[in-house]
Structure formats: structure tokens, C-alpha cells
């Protein structure tokens, strides 16, 4: 028995909407049935079999093999099961995901985990802008679950984030935690400029002082916060984040953004 596998036949010049390929929709389908599922390629529909070599047997675990960054909406709205992407993913990976697990061995595009509600999204490479952010027009970003990115992330990671946890092993772009409503972001590397802009609540934890903070953040002093022990125990078991076991509970705390409620916090680990 092998899991259902979709292997991209050739590089794409247009983007594909991969949202039909979530475990709950294909778990009971044979390879032939999957091959007949219509997918949008640009402005026309084609059978999946034209684009992918399909093999394997029905299962709640789906394997996608692709070096293309044009496979959008992988795992969108999925509620259960697992998707493993060997290679890269496009935009909106795990968008509005409500359960299950997605793992990507390569990089992912913009808006990964946006509007996510639950589940586990792991990226071994880099992520694009708006990681865990909001769908365009919506007022809340990620609302639960966990995203881990072992590499870097783009700008506005955690924008409008409402709940859940984002871990970033590398550096983050500008405006990290912008407009954040609640939740937790751990960014091990260097955060870019304007970190925490319009942050209302929530926690950003980082190893280094961000490149710049808004003037509307105030220093809160050095504190020992015991919840960091619990958080560290929880996330240090994740692949790529075992180094967190070395982190203590003493942090330099900045509070803000005072221009909008001001109950967010940026914690900088004291090594």
C-alpha cells in the first residue's frame, strides 16, 4: 500500500488551484478517479491526469511532488489527514485550514497559513509575505493552529493574527506582527523594520532586538516570565527548533503599540 501521490509532469507557466486535493475529498478515490478531477489552469479546466502522474491507493495521507512554486491553495480548508509536499508550494498554502497536518520540504509562497483555524503547518524552507495573515478583506488572520517555518519569512508575518502560534527559525521581513490581535510569534532570527506596527495584543518573542520598533512602543524592563518555560517545552520538540531548549525565561520586554490599545508585547530573550 502506498499513499496517493501527485507528481508534476512538467514545469508550469500558469498557476494551479490545488484546493480540490485535500484528504477528506480524495481519501476514498482511486488514482483513476483523482486523474479525472478537473483543475483550473489559468482560465481553463483540465483533468488532473494531464498535469500530474498519479499513483498510490486511497489514503488520508497525500503526497505531492513538485519543484514548481505555482501550486496554490494546497491544503486549503482541509480538516483532517496529512499532506506532504516534496518540493515547493505556491501561495495560500493551508489557507483556512481547520485541522490535519501539512509538511513542505521546500519553500512556500505568499500567505501561507492565512486565515488558518487549526492544525499543523510545517515548512522546512522559507515562507513568503503574510505568513499566518488574513485573507484579503478579512479583519482577522490566523485564528488557531501552529505554523513552523525553519527558514526565513517575508514581510508582515502574523498580520492581523488572532490566535495560534507561528515559529520562524530564520529571519523575518519588515512589519512582523503588524496589526496583531492576539497569539504568539516566535522569531529566532532577526526581525526587520517596523516590527509590531499597530499591534493591539499578542506576543512576539525574538532573540534579537528588531531592526526598528515604532516610537509607540515603550520599554517595560527585564522580566523573568515562567510561561516561557511551558512554551519552550512545547515548541522545542519540533524539527528545527530544538535550540529553544537553551533559551531562558529572562526577557527584555517592550509593550505597545500605544497608538492602538497598546497591550501587545515584544520579548527579547536575554542570553
Amino acid at each position, binding site marked *: 500500500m502506498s499513499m496517493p501521490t501527485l507528481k508534476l509532469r512538467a514545469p508550469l507557466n500558469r498557476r494551479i488551484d490545488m484546493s480540490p486535493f485535500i484528504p477528506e475529498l480524495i481519501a476514498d478515490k482511486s488514482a483513476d478517479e483523482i486523474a479525472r478531477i478537473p483543475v483550473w489552469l489559468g482560465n481553463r479546466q483540465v483533468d488532473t491526469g494531464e498535469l500530474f502522474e498519479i499513483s498510490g491507493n486511497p489514503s488520508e495521507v497525500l503526497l505531492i511532488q513538485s519543484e514548481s512554486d505555482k501550486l496554490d491553495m494546497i491544503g486549503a480548508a482541509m480538516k483532517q489527514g496529512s499532506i506532504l509536499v516534496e518540493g515547493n508550494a505556491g501561495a495560500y498554502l493551508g489557507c483556512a485550514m481547520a485541522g490535519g497536518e501539512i509538511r513542505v520540504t521546500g519553500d512556500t509562497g505568499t500567505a501561507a497559513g492565512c486565515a488558518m483555524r487549526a492544525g499543523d503547518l510545517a515548512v522546512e524552507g522559507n515562507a513568503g509575505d503574510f505568513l499566518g495573515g488574513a485573507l484579503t478583506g478579512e479583519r482577522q488572520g490566523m485564528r*488557531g493552529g501552529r505554523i513552523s517555518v525553519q527558514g526565513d519569512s517575508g514581510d508582515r508575518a502574523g498580520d492581523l493574527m488572532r*490566535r*495560534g*502560534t507561528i515559529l520562524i527559525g530564520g529571519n523575518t521581513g519588515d512589519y512582523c506582527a503588524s496589526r496583531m490581535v*492576539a*497569539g*504568539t510569534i516566535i522569531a529566532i532570527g532577526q526581525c526587520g523594520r517596523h516590527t509590531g506596527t499597530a499591534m493591539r*495584543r499578542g*506576543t512576539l518573542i525574538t532573540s534579537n532586538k528588531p531592526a526598528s520598533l515604532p516610537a509607540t512602543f515603550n520599554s517595560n524592563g527585564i*522580566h*523573568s*516570565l*515562567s*510561561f516561557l*518555560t*511551558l*512554551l519552550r*517545552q*512545547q515548541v522545542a520538540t519540533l524539527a528545527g527548533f530544538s535550540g529553544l531548549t537553551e533559551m531562558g525565561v529572562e526577557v527584555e520586554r517592550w509593550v505597545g503599540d500605544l497608538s492602538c490599545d497598546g*497591550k501587545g*508585547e515584544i520579548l527579547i530573550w536575554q542570553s
Partner: protein
Amino acid sequence: MIINGTEIEETFAEAFGMSATRIIITAIDAKWARIAGETMTGFATSVIGCGVEAGIETELSPEQTPDGRHGVSVLLFAMSGKALAKQLETRVGQCVLTCPTTAVFSGMQGEKQMPLGKNLRFFGDGYQISKQIGANRYWRVPVMDGEFLCEERVARTGAVGGGNFLVLANHQQQALTACEKAIVEMRKLPNVIMPFPGGIVRSGSKVGSKYKGLMASTNDAYCPTLRGLVNSNLDNDIGAVMEIVINGLTDEDVRLATRTGISAVCELGAAGGIKRISAGNYGGKLGQFHFHLREVMA
């Protein structure tokens, strides 16, 4: 049945179904964790007057606690889930939240849940911070020494309260020495507490009283100074009786604690002045759990 010269009476302890929970209190060191645990389990000897029966189950090393600090685990027992929730919230709010450096966590898993920090968080006056870590939600409440960290909810479970045995000795000091020895051994067991002072009761009670409105009164049949006045259960050579009351998460826990305690007492035996082991019951009609002493010790 006679063990080391001490008679095990043909009787049984009668115990009741209760609701119980376990919380873990941590602090900067073992001293302050114990202070918090002792404070919140003070005035918690009997549900009759205290609303809850509570005690420190065990001390915990940093490796055994959620936040890696010294701690204690505390068991609380009440007659209903509602009464338990009320007592828990009051006691954690007044005795743990106020105690320097403490944090409090759920000490058991289960489907039946009740608030722990869910309402205490409002002490933060809007500055409290919620943190979802794994499957659990925690509250960080700003206080004058930093932050009070507490888990939002704690589980409760059905339990057994009121297991007991009586130690009948020649003299008061002999009864006390035997009970102290029993308590030392019983406190090594998990899932049980002995809620009375030092684990020992000297004022065992019977149901009712000659006075209206008094639910319980002195157990006259076991009071040495009433021998000759009432229908006493004491021989002439019994000078003092002390009782150990046991609450446990299961009847098996209470049974094991009873056996452990009586065994410890019987090590002193008749040579130590311990004449007889008895137990308190209400004729078997009130409590669901009966612990027959001779079966327990068989």
C-alpha cells in the same frame, strides 16, 4: 484477627462518593510552594464546616512540574462538583494568587472540567494575557512581583471520602505515636490525603446531637471520659482513641492507604500500647463504600 497483639475489630469503615480535583502549585523554591499549599488547604478538614476537604498530596521536584520549579500537588474533595469549583476558586484566589512567586496548574486530565484561572484572570483588570500552549490555555495575570501564571481549567473526577480507622491505645501518647507513624507511611502513597490536622482526628463524631441544628457531635461511644455514662465501646484499659480519615481518588487508593496505615500502627502492636483497631460507620446505610478492616488486612 490479631496482628502483633493488636486486635483488628470485625467492623468496617463507611465512605462516601465525592468530587475531587488535583492542582499543582509551583513557586520559586520548595518553601514557598509548601506555604501556598498549606495556606490553601488550611481550614479544609471536613466538608461539614469547611465546604471542602483538602491536603497536600506530595511535594514535587522541578522535573515533575510544568514550569520546572519546585511544587506541591494538592487534592481537594467536596460533596458536589459545584461546591468543589466554588471552593477551589476561592482558595486559589485568596491563598495562591496572593502568595509570592506562585503559579498554579491543573494536576489531572479528564472530560469533566471546571474553572481554575478562568475567572481569577479578571484580577488583572484588563491587562491579563491569555496564552494557548498546546492543548491548554493559561492566563498571565500581572501582580506586584511579576506575573501570576495559572491554567484556565482543571479536571475533576469522582472520588471516595471518609475512609477511616480508629486506633485504641492505653494512653494518649501511645495513640498519637502510632498515628504519627501511620501518617508518615500513608503520605508516601499517591492519590490520597488525610485532611485533618497532621492527618489525625481526636474528635471523631457521630451523626446528630441532643442540640437542635447540630449535624454532628462527639462520638461518645469512643470517649474514654464517658465510659460508664454511655453505651461505651471502650474496655477499661483504653485511655485514648485517635482516628485517621482518608480521602482518595478511588476506593482502591483508600483501601491501600487503610492497609498501609493499620500495618504501621500494628508494628508497634500491644507492646506499644495499641490494643485495638476499629472503624467508623453509620450502619452501612449512608455511604456507598465499605472497607471491612479484616478484609483489608487479609
